């Protein structure tokens, strides 16, 4: 692992970053993040260096409060980079304008939340279509992607149902279909199987594995060993640091 880091650093020096960035989805250098608590600051991420290549299935584990969700939020451009550097496809997130970040969130990142966050007033189909129309796709493309995504998660027959008419597992599959239909570079999930039973959870993971096999990246936080077993690699966090310390390259 240390050899890989050294190799990458040499590559940066010899060929410049852009050459290398074609294969690296995320790169973090000295990443830190803290939350304000009255006059104090509570460190959630205490200095992380890592690289995540494209087409990988990454799981992030660790005890509660270890910084999993914060890291996920940083990767999803949900929290701002406070200290250190974080690159997405070679572009430094901290230097992106709000408009650029919105564009990245709209086109390149898909989210799956533990609480699904579906719009209760829209049907399963409309929940997916909403973000596709926001990508200004043609109607036919929106319809085709929606159908494909709902068929993939096995919910095409339930497309006219509202979230209140779906089970927890079905809701999560709609949320996954919504993320998949966007055709992002990376899907980020915050414990997406936490509210599902073992069978539904496994079903969700298989869908995500297929997404990775199509050349995309999935990054999930989890406490579940079943979920970790789907990952190409696991990043274990303890107290806002990657266990083992030092630079880590996941490749």
């Amino acid at each position, binding site marked *: 692992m240390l050899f890989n880091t050294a190799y990458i650093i040499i590559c940066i020096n010899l060929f410049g970053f852009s050459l290398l960035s074609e294969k690296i989805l995320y790169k973090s250098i000295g990443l830190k993040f803290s939350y304000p608590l009255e006059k104090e600051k509570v460190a959630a991420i205490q200095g992380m260096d890592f690289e995540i290549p494209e087409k990988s299935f990454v799981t992030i584990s660790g005890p509660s409060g270890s910084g999993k969700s914060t890291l996920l939020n940083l990767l999803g451009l949900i929290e701002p980079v406070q200290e250190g550097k974080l690159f997405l496809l070679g572009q430094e997130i901290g230097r992106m304008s*709000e408009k650029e970040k919105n*564009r990245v*969130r709209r086109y390149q990142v898909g989210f799956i939340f533990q609480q699904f*966050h579906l*719009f209760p007033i*829209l049907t399963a189909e409309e929940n997916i279509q909403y973000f596709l*129309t*926001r990508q200004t796709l043609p109607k036919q493309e929106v319809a085709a992607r929606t159908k494909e995504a709902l068929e993939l998660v096995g919910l095409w027959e339930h497309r006219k149902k509202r979230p209140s008419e779906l089970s927890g597992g079905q809701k999560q599959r709609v949320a996954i279909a919504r993320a998949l239909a966007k055709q992002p570079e990376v899907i980020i999930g915050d414990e997406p199987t936490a509210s599902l039973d073992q069978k539904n959870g496994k079903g969700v993971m298989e869908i995500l594995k297929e997404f990775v096999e199509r050349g995309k990246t999935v990054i999930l936080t989890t406490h579940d060993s079943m979920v970790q077993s789907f990952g190409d690699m696991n990043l274990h966090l303890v107290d806002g640091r990657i266990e083992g310390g030092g630079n880590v390259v996941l490749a």
Partner: protein
Amino acid sequence: MWFWLSLKNLFRNPRRTFAILITIAIGTGALFAFDGFINGVLKELKYDTIHSNYGYGQIHPLGYREMVYEKPMDHWMGNGEELEAYLYSVAGVENVFPRVSFSALLKSNHTTIGGSGQGVHAEREAEFFHSLNVEEGEMLRSQPSGILLGKGLANALQVKPGDSVKVTATSNKGYLKNGNFIVTGIFHTGSSDFDGRVFRIQLPEAQKLLKTSKIEHVSLGLRSDADWPAVATSLHTAFPHLEATPFDVLDKIYYQNSVNWLKAQFAVVQVIILSIVLLGIFNSISSSILERKQEIGNLRANGESRVEIMRMILTEGGLIAFVGSLLGLLGAYTILTFFVHNGLMMPPGPGQTKEFVVTFSFEWPMVLVSLALSMLAALIASYFASFKVARLSIASALRAL
């Protein structure tokens, strides 16, 4: 599709949406009704002012109204017939009423009192100046020695129709001239000041008293007050030494001040109603947004900008305001047209002595103004309600309970 989402969001909590709709509808309806009421009062006021004394306006020698002359009659108009003929040829002019006014002493068996006389073509004026409500007796028409007295003046003289009144005025040459007149009727206009000093006799009789053939001013009856500017311009071109003054300037103290007073009152009530609407909508939309913080976080996480979130919420506010306003306008119009179509009996206004009926008078611009004001209030409320949540960080919104 964001518009679709905004629209659907309105059906998320039908009871709350209904409450906001009702708030807006009542607010807009109240604005519209009050506007209609004020408009009705103003129309009544204008109608009374025009048809009680001034007409749509008057023509005087240039500068005559602003000056105090030792011998005002020297400045009166000697070309009354020529002027009258010209005025009848101007488009929009329907009636021409040459007049003189003068101060005089009126004497009955009981008392002597000062009054303000008007020499008029009574027959011609009778139809137009019908706001001179004749309380006793009859209108002055063709009776050559008739005199029509204001109610206050008749009370002071203690006379009734059929009684004799002696009028003494100072002639053009400075002599005192007397004339005996028979009271034909006693009028009231509602204005106690006017009713307490004004009397009317025939124009030739007044000219005889004053020993002049001139006229002091001409009152005009027009097709509508919209014709006034053209008539005034035409007159100024043909008779540069004369000036035309509209009724609202002639009666500035009473009419224009009343208009300003009513409009100011309306503005205050408008602000109060709009504030209530604004707070009501703000409260409802705020609770609606607070419940949707996570959804808004999700929207932001998927690329919606703060402006787009605010646009969505403003659209919701705008939509509900539009529908609510239309309901309010329709409701107010229906209620007032079908249930209060006879108007409301109002107590006497400032400086008036009689009750009057106000009908709600609606005009298209009022619909647009009420609609625009309600929508503006709703949009302002939505803006402030959405501002905080749109500024919230995505992570905080997603974490919100």
